[in-house]
């Protein structure tokens, strides 16, 4: 117990916030230190999160902020899901911030690093919190820093994308707030566990309306099918390091919030067919639009929509295996998509163009980056022995486990989506390696600070893909935590 009081999960939020407030002060002293601050912060976060993770697998840690008992104060719920995602955020953040040290050279650098640090702090807060209004506040931190970062380069497309994102995102936040107000009006509490205990039947009209408001609000950030108009523009016109975390983390966190609200607060059980169909639609629309793109970052952004659809589909199977598969797919998408955006960032930087055709022959000029990119695409498409295969395989097993005809048809459609995905990714790989070998202009390899994160991500992808048992030990408790509402209430309210 003594050791646990030092490793409090609240440090995962408090220390990065403190560092972010410290950056302007350090900026007065030296400009060079500033760019290493996010690296330090996420290194710290990663270590703390990985140290806490084994403890929470047995029993979740409830952090009482200010020492007030849960329904009266805010509490953090550091369970298996929360800590799994928090460690993922910290590790990805660490790697991407190493990448950004050399990559960000334009604009107000110091401000970029503050915004980046706070974006991931907001994400960590969302996955750890156990209070719906606190969820809203951290969501706003996440959203506002993303709005600013998308417009960071100040290009025309970036500005327009950011404005689109801002308008839709702020309508979403208002909807979330209306939903919170309705819930508070009916139940007089904001604590998730307390709400879950008092909500008996979610089909009652008044509860259902507030649920629809909350899901719509969160769904805009999670980019579920009818609400994802902002995503392709925003993800493709941000700086690549930002696209990596937006695609890899921000939408996953949004999806986590949707799942948490649906499973834990409302204990929804019967309209998952609706979400399943939405998920499959998202997969098909995302992959088909990606197939038609000529711009590499837009293609990756649309591919993210497809992956999100797959994750929604996996969660809405709502069995132990399905939820575990969804979480696994989240992990593999985060690693794979972050890797792809990081590689694409330097490829675009060296060629000076986002068109796929301009990448011809880059496999010879930038061999390591191209190799990493290839491994990333293999993982996203789902080829063995990479993580994407293991996670997709788990989802397919979950879908076929019941032997229901509908599930079989839907998983068939998802596989069609995967085939489309494979087609356009192989098209890129063909362009990279087998076309335009006659071009001889000299392009150098990406710098070391960019190669190290890419190689680490590649090693993660390969290791987890070969030995999925490592992560399975975390996934199983995480899935049962999401599905077991009674245990959640019990551990918070005692």
């Amino acid at each position: 117990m003594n050791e646990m009081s030092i490793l409090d999960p609240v440090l995962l939020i408090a220390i990065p916030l403190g560092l972010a407030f410290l950056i302007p002060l350090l900026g007065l002293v030296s400009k060079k230190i500033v760019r290493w601050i996010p690296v330090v912060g996420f290194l710290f976060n990663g270590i703390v999160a990985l140290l806490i993770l084994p403890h929470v697998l047995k029993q979740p840690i409830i952090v009482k902020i200010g020492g007030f008992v849960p329904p009266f104060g805010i509490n953090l719920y550091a369970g298996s899901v929360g800590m799994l995602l928090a460690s993922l955020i910290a590790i990805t953040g660490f790697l991407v911030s190493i990448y950004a040290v050399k990559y960000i050279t334009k604009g107000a650098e110091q401000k970029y690093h503050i915004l980046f640090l706070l974006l991931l702090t907001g994400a960590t807060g969302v996955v750890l919190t156990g209070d719906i209004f606190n969820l809203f506040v951290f969501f706003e931190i996440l959203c506002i820093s993303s709005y600013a970062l998308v417009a960071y380069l100040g290009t025309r497309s970036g500005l327009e994308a950011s404005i689109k994102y801002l308008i839709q995102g702020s309508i979403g936040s208002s909807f979330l707030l209306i939903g919170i107000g309705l819930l508070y009006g009916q139940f007089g509490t904001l604590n998730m566990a307390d709400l879950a205990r008092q909500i008996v039947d979610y089909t009652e009209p008044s509860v259902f309306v507030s649920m629809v408001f909350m899901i719509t609000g969160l769904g805009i950030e999670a980019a579920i099918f009818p609400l994802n108009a902002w995503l392709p523009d925003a993800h493709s016109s941000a700086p690549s390091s930002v696209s990596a975390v937006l695609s890899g983390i921000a939408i996953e966190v949004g999806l986590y919030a949707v799942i948490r609200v649906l499973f834990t607060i409302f204990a929804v059980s019967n309209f998952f067919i609706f979400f399943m169909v939405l998920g499959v639609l998202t997969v098909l629309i995302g992959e088909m639009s990606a197939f038609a793109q000529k711009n590499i970052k837009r293609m990756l952004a649309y591919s993210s929509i497809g992956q999100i659809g797959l994750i929604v589909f996996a969660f809405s199977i709502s069995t132990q295996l399905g939820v575990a598969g969804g979480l696994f797919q989240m992990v593999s998408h985060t690693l794979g998509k972050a890797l792809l955006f990081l590689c694409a960032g330097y490829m675009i930087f060296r060629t000076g163009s986002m068109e796929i055709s301009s990448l011809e022959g880059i496999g010879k000029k930038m061999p390591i980056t191209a190799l990493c990119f290839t491994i990333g695409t293999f993982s996203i498409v789902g080829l063995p022995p990479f993580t994407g295969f293991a996670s997709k395989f788990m989802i397919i097993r979950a879908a076929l486990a019941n032997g229901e005809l509908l599930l079989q048809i839907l998983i068939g459609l998802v596989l069609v989506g995967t085939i489309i995905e494979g087609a356009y990714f192989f098209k890129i790989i063909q362009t990279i390696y087998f076309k335009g070998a006659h071009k001889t202009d000299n392009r150098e390899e990406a710098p070391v600070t960019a190669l190290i994160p890419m190689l680490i991500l590649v090693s993660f992808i390969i290791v987890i893909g070969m030995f999925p048992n490592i992560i399975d030990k975390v996934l199983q408790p995480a899935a049962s935590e999401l599905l077991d509402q009674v245990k959640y209430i019990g551990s918070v309210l005692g």
Partner: protein
Amino acid sequence: MNILYDYIYYAGAFGLIFIGIFTMMVKRNYIKVIIGLSILETGVNLFLISVGYISNGTAPIFSNPGIEAKNMVDPVPQALVLTAIVIGLAVLSLALSMAIRLYKHFGTLDLQQIKEQRW
């Protein structure tokens, strides 16, 4: 009269919310859209506060010894709205700084025209 009194604050709040959303959906001028957002936020705040109201209540402050605790209105929505107002200001000022940039780049604030002349 009684029914009117029961619903008049809610009606006002949701009236603002609807006008705000409608402005944001229909108008094409970017600053008009942001004005819609600010009206929407005011409406949400008014709604939250009226959720916490208690008939014949007093403000939740023990300013002099004679005040009794049982008549106080709900302090929680007030704390939430305090947070929401500040967040609203933050979003609005960021949005308006983008409006300035937008005008520098495109020379117009009409979102439809901006979409057309992007590429």
